């Protein structure tokens, strides 16, 4: 009955009321406070949010107005979202770690009159830019610490606001009025405005409506069979579409319990205590977790270490096939069962994954080894692809159809089309209503027939029917023979090798693809130690012929895997070199978020690029570098270049035949 009822409710406050009816005494939210997990049932949450809404109304918040939500994942901030929606006001979550500059842009652009904030730190940040926010009138806060000597004319504690509302609600007519307000909310009204992070220009306010949000959430709740018995840990930024979708929207629609960590630093411990059944983590988090496990295993006793490595080997051989329901020899099943008792089970328990039924990762490409590791120990990790404009989901991998290099087929009721230039276009139940106060940008992001342009280039894999995302559409180039050249796709494939730290690929409007590689000093250094390769500096190690041989093997493997794809076969790497210095943000070669600046590097290393394309076997280069203390110096080197063999692609073979 639940999904049907959810489909009828077209705003989140109505869903909340439904949940209080259906699951009144079941936990809706948990929060660890003073070391103890506090729990609120759906019934209690509804009562609290009603009181909060009345309190906010008495402060002056009205239908259609916006209210900023700033802070970490705390129940009171989620209730602020719910209470605002109850009044028909529009919550605007802002990243808690946003600097004052970004904060003032969003708050001014969204024209907020109110802000619900976590603590004094956020209040200080807002006060520091208050002259840019003439419309801001009131702030309500969760944590009163350090605020004693502040001017309280414009500050109220959330507890006081809720208490004020509770007192007002003792008058039955107020309750009737609030019910009318909730009923007056329409599914087509703006439910929330989520600002994009602004990696591609200024951030834009993505307006999502209640009806579409709920429809999208109902689809995926059914897709992953989420119920009121599930539990999720809300540890991702509140202002990110992922948190709003995965935890808030799905939590309300499915009626599952959302747990808030004690603090951002304790999320991993809290994960273990809560034991969620639904989990999301970006690849970077998964990688950090694995690294931590591996480091601790190196310190473990001899027996434990041997056992760990043996059974992880067993898991690599059989684990994924068992999870996918494929045939596995009896001995494999037996060994895996023993490994589960001795290693996988305890390991998952330590990581807090014991009860995870569905786990997703997304955001960037995930290394095949990393992905396989988690799946092999029995974690049902899957990939999805989406964006804020879609209200997260565009594609997701169904159980049993998991591949590390795809993001899955279109989600239920999502329509995907690939444009001429390779850009992925979609139409989905949850798609956004427009950018806030920016019709021009909204029009730019849509095709005339109503598809949203993702800005990402991709294609459907022929074998699996899944979507593969290769790069930002504007970065995808073409070789002179017309073959597709997706730089990031190639770079990521190489970067999955631990020996390779950074890669810059060139090929747009050129005859063939060349790459410049940075080796990883830790990984290659430890390899050198084991193989008695003597080196004095990064530069010396990078130029070592044995290192070149090793990297050449990696490049050849990547070429083979590119050749296996009809679309990518033309983008195989013809020549490569290993750079004599590490690319560094201080020299402007990387962005502060560690992304390569391809254009800048091409200019800086112009002699190398020239040598790559004119066929010379080596080239001289000298570059200016900035040391950590600000001094400048030059590094000169003679860099060798290697030629690679191009593998035949299936399509090319077809043509030849």
């Amino acid at each position, binding site marked *: 009955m639940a999904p049907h009822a959810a489909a009828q409710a077209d705003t989140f406050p109505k869903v909340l009321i439904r949940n209080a009816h259906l699951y009144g005494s079941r936990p809706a939210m948990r929060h660890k406070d*003073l*070391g103890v997990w506090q729990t609120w049932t759906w019934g209690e949450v509804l009562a609290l949010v009603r009181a909060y809404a009345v309190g906010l109304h008495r402060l002056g918040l009205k239908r259609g107005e916006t209210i900023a939500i700033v802070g970490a994942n705390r129940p009171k901030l989620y209730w602020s979202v719910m209470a605002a929606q109850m009044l028909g006001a529009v919550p605007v979550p802002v990243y808690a770690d946003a600097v004052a500059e970004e904060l003032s842009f969003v708050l001014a652009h969204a024209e907020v009159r109110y802000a619900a904030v976590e603590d004094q730190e956020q209040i200080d940040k807002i006060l520091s830019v208050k002259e840019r926010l003439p419309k801001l009138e009131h702030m309500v806060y969760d944590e009163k610490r*350090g605020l004693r*000597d502040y001017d309280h004319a414009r500050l109220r504690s959330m507890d006081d606001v809720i208490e004020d509302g509770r007192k007002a609600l003792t008058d039955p007519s107020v309750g009737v009025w609030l019910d009318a307000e909730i009923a007056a909310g329409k599914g087509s009204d703006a439910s929330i405005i989520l600002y994009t992070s602004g990696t591609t220009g200024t951030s834009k306010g993505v307006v999502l409506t209640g009806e579409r949000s709920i429809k999208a959430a109902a689809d995926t709740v059914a897709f992953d069979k989420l119920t009121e018995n599930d539990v999720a840990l809300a540890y991702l930024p509140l202002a990110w579409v992922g948190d709003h979708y995965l935890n808030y929207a799905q939590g309300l629609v499915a009626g599952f319990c959302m747990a808030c960590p004690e*603090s951002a*630093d304790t999320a991993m*411990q809290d994960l273990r205590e809560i034991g969620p059944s639904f989990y999301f983590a970006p690849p970077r988090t998964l990688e950090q977790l694995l690294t931590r496990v591996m480091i601790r295993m190196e310190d473990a006793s001899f027996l434990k270490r041997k056992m760990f490595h043996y059974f992880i080997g067993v898991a690599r051989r059989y684990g994924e096939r068992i999870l996918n329901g494929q045939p596995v020899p009896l001995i494999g099943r037996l060994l895996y069962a023993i490994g589960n008792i001795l290693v996988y089970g305890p390991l998952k328990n330590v990581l807090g994954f014991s009860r995870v039924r569905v786990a997703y990762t997304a955001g960037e490409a995930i290394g095949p080894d990393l992905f396989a590791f988690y799946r092999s120990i029995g974690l049902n990790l899957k990939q999805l692809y989406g964006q804020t404009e879609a209200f997260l989901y565009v594609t997701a991998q169904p159980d049993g159809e998991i591949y590390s290099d795809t993001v899955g087929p279109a989600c239920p009721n999502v329509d995907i089309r690939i444009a001429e230039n390779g850009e992925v276009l979609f139409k989905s139940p949850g798609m956004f209503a427009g950018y806030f106060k920016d019709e021009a940008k909204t029009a730019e992001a849509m095709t005339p027939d109503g598809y949203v342009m993702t800005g990402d280039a991709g294609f459907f894999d022929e074998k699996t029917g899944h979507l593969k995302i290769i790069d930002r559409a504007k970065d995808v180039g073409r070789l002179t023979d017309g073959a597709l050249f997706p730089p990031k796709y190639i770079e990521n494939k190489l970067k999955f090798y631990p020996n390779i730290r950074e890669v810059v690929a060139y090929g747009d409007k050129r005859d063939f693809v060349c790459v410049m590689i940075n080796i990883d000093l830790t990984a290659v250094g430890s390899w050198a130690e084991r193989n008695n390769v003597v080196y004095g500096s990064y530069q010396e190690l990078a130029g070592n012929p044995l290192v070149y041989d090793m990297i050449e093997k990696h490049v050849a493997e990547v070429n083979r895997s590119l050749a296996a794809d009809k679309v990518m076969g033309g983008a195989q790497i013809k020549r490569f070199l290993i750079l004599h210095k590490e690319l560094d943000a201080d020299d402007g070669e990387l962005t502060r978020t560690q992304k390569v600046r391809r254009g800048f590097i091409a200019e800086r290393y112009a002699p190398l690029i020239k040598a790559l394309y004119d066929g010379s076997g080596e080239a001289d280069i000298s570059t200016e570098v900035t040391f950590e203390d600000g001094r400048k110096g030059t590094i000169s080197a003679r860099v060798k270049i290697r030629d690679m063999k191009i593998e035949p692609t299936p399509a090319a073979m077809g043509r030849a035949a």
Partner: protein
Amino acid sequence: MRALGSPEVAVGDVLLSAENVSLSFGGVKAVSDVSFDIRKGEIRAIIGPNGAGKTSMLNIINGFYHPQQGRITFKGETRSKMRPHDAAHGGIARTFQNVALFRGMTALDNLMAGRTLKMHKNFFWQLLRFGPAMAEEVEHRHRVEEIIDFLKIQNIRRTPVAQLPYGLQKRLELGRALAMEPDLLLLDEPMAGMNLEEKEDMSRFVLDVNNHFGTTIALIEHDMGVVMDLSNRVVVLDHGIKIADGTPDQVKSNQAVIDAYLGVAH
């Protein structure tokens, strides 16, 4: 918020006063004829160059050293020989220049140890950990959790102290002193060896302790910026002699202080 560095002087009653205190170790005069007072609710700084007698002064206040001359009056009671545990019972807590925690115990256990003086059930009850002893422990744990929340150290609750970075150990030491719910908190160089960010955090905590719990604080600190920002009043020692006493601004412009710090031809 109190404007940092404003010379507003707390108007509370005198909580502790030192009158004509002198202390010497053999021929070395550590402190000679120093008088000053600490008022309720203020942050009082004791500064001075190396070897000026600051830590000796602090040790006199909490009863670790006994001055040969002079009197210490705390909460209206004058004691010529106060011992450290009397000071602790009386509501004086302190932190140390070099961290003095139980390194093998977890952060939580260190904080619980700070509650020892407030425990009333005897040793055997606590061994049993049952009934009233359990109820008492729960109550103490609750107070400790409030301090953990206050100092934002939830993530290190179960971490042995020896594994913690220095800045966190300093913060934890403040926490253990707070667990005693002191009336007077003595901080001996709370920011020594910290980087700028850690110093800023620690300053915030010191202000918050003063603001939130109303605790009177006497601190020794070398970082002049920190002292001038945090404290209401400053007393300056040099070679065991008090050379200045007043608001940060008064002290800053005092010629004797400038000479003591920059050095003059004698």
